[in-house]
């Protein structure tokens, strides 16, 4: 056995830099997935909180930090929908006994852009995988290779899948009269 020396690991950027650099794309991705700006902000905050805990020991190379963050955000979104599903089940039970108050339309209060709001509503009709791919492409502004790194596909496969997802969304939007 020969010891060939310790590779000096590249020091990761301070997390605050990571946060400042990538907050917009992580937030916009979350927004593309949940439609509601308040939820998006919360999910982005949760994603960075989780990332902060793992950053020092995971030490992703600088060029892989954004895909890594978006993997965390993607899973935060999945968790969000699972929680929402459980809440919906609970509400369905409670509704048998009492009428619920109609929740305020938070999204209309925050998203002034009607066109974007319409797109977000239509995106909910996409399958989860397609919605993720579209969000990573147009909201997080990732290359196909970066999308592949987030969802675990080769660049070629990510390109094909993402383009098909965008085409599906276009067809849905056109069908909705947008």
């Amino acid at each position, binding site marked *: 056995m020969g010891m060939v020396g310790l590779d000096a690991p590249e020091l990761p950027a301070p997390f605050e830099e990571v946060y400042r650099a990538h907050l917009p794309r992580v937030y916009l991705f979350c927004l593309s997935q949940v439609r509601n700006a308040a939820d998006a902000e*919360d999910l982005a905050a949760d994603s960075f909180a989780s990332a902060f805990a*793992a950053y020092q020991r995971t030490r992703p190379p600088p060029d892989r930090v954004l895909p890594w963050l978006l993997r965390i955000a993607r899973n935060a979104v999945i968790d969000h929908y699972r929680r929402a599903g459980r809440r919906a089940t609970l509400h369905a039970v409670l509704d048998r006994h009492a009428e619920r108050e109609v929740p305020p339309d938070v999204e209309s209060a925050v998203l002034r852009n009607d066109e974007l709001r319409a797109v977000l509503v239509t995106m909910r009709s996409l399958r989860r995988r397609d919605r993720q791919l579209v969000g990573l492409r147009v909201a997080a*502004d990732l290359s196909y290779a970066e999308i592949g*790194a987030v969802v*675990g596909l080769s660049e070629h496969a990510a390109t094909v899948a993402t383009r098909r997802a965008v085409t599906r969304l*276009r067809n849905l939007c056109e069908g909705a009269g947008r």
Partner: protein
Amino acid sequence: MSDWEPEDQRFEEELRGLFAAVRVPPVLSTSDGTERARPPRWTSPLRLVAAGIATVLVAGGAAVAVRGQHGAPDPVASPQPTASAPPSPAPSDTRPTTRPTLPDAHSTAASSAPPRTGPAASGQHSSASSAPPAGSALPGPGNTGVPAGVTLRPSGSVEVTRPGTVLDGLDITGVVTIRAAGVTIRNSRIRTSDEWAVQLVSGSVTILDSELIGGHSSAIQEGNWRAYRVHIHDVYGDGVRLGSGSLLQDSYVHDVGSAGARMLSGGSNITLRHNVIRGGSSALFLTPEGGPDGAGPVTVQGNVIGGGSYSLYVVSGQQGTYHQRGYTITGNRWLRDADYGPVSVTEPRSAIVAWGDNTFTDGARVDLP
């Protein structure tokens, strides 16, 4: 990609413009809207510690508690169907002694696992050689990786050229390169930012009670290796690469960028037994991929798998050019968290010599598509 039209391109650009115009909050606030003037939530480590104490897996109707060591959340793991918080990816010197129980245990094969052996240098191993193997306990952070009480010695990359070498109790930052037969790695942690944590150039290696973190291609390169009670996580590529003579048992694989375990060519004597494997794109991607054909056997038995587009792929290589035969896939449990379904098969049915007792964790049967 022929269906990508100029209208699609314009549509994509238009969407990108819509999102680019959104005002992004300069500092994130909590959902109650009270923290805009305060630092973002990630500045509070107490909240993080409180967030990730335990994971609860519900499988087969019974709850299984897996206690994380450091309490930090496992950020990249796909969420468990019923999890309150995922387990910690943090390396651990002091594995907790409480062990989860497997609701639908498949202990027959696990009995062949080698027993734990304490590090010769420290002599502090709590379970020592008399301890039973992980057996029927569900592999998780509590019973995989470096056992409690082991003192690790820092090390850089290691290249092994002498047959029979034993690496014991090392905390390695870098790569272990194997160029010899009969090598053993045990009670060790390997953390890498290279292509592999364990690079198998030639020879063979057995990995026991160890933690492998990172790897741009995979934590373990394909080839003649055996791994027992290994905790593999935060890998950018595949968790492990499978080749002829590969065996993964009683191990926990999660937080991977691509497949939890992947074949790249046809092979024989490939075994995945009694593991918990959660994928990025899939948990198990079984294929002769770039050839040649493989005769098998390939045994997938008693695992809990989840994640991915499909959790399990059994597919031919190069669109039907290469084929793997001799699959035995029995007694596995699927989490219901794959994007499209539990299984995708493109190999001829004759490639699968045995398929049975495969269910979701709620007991519903998983059939071949």
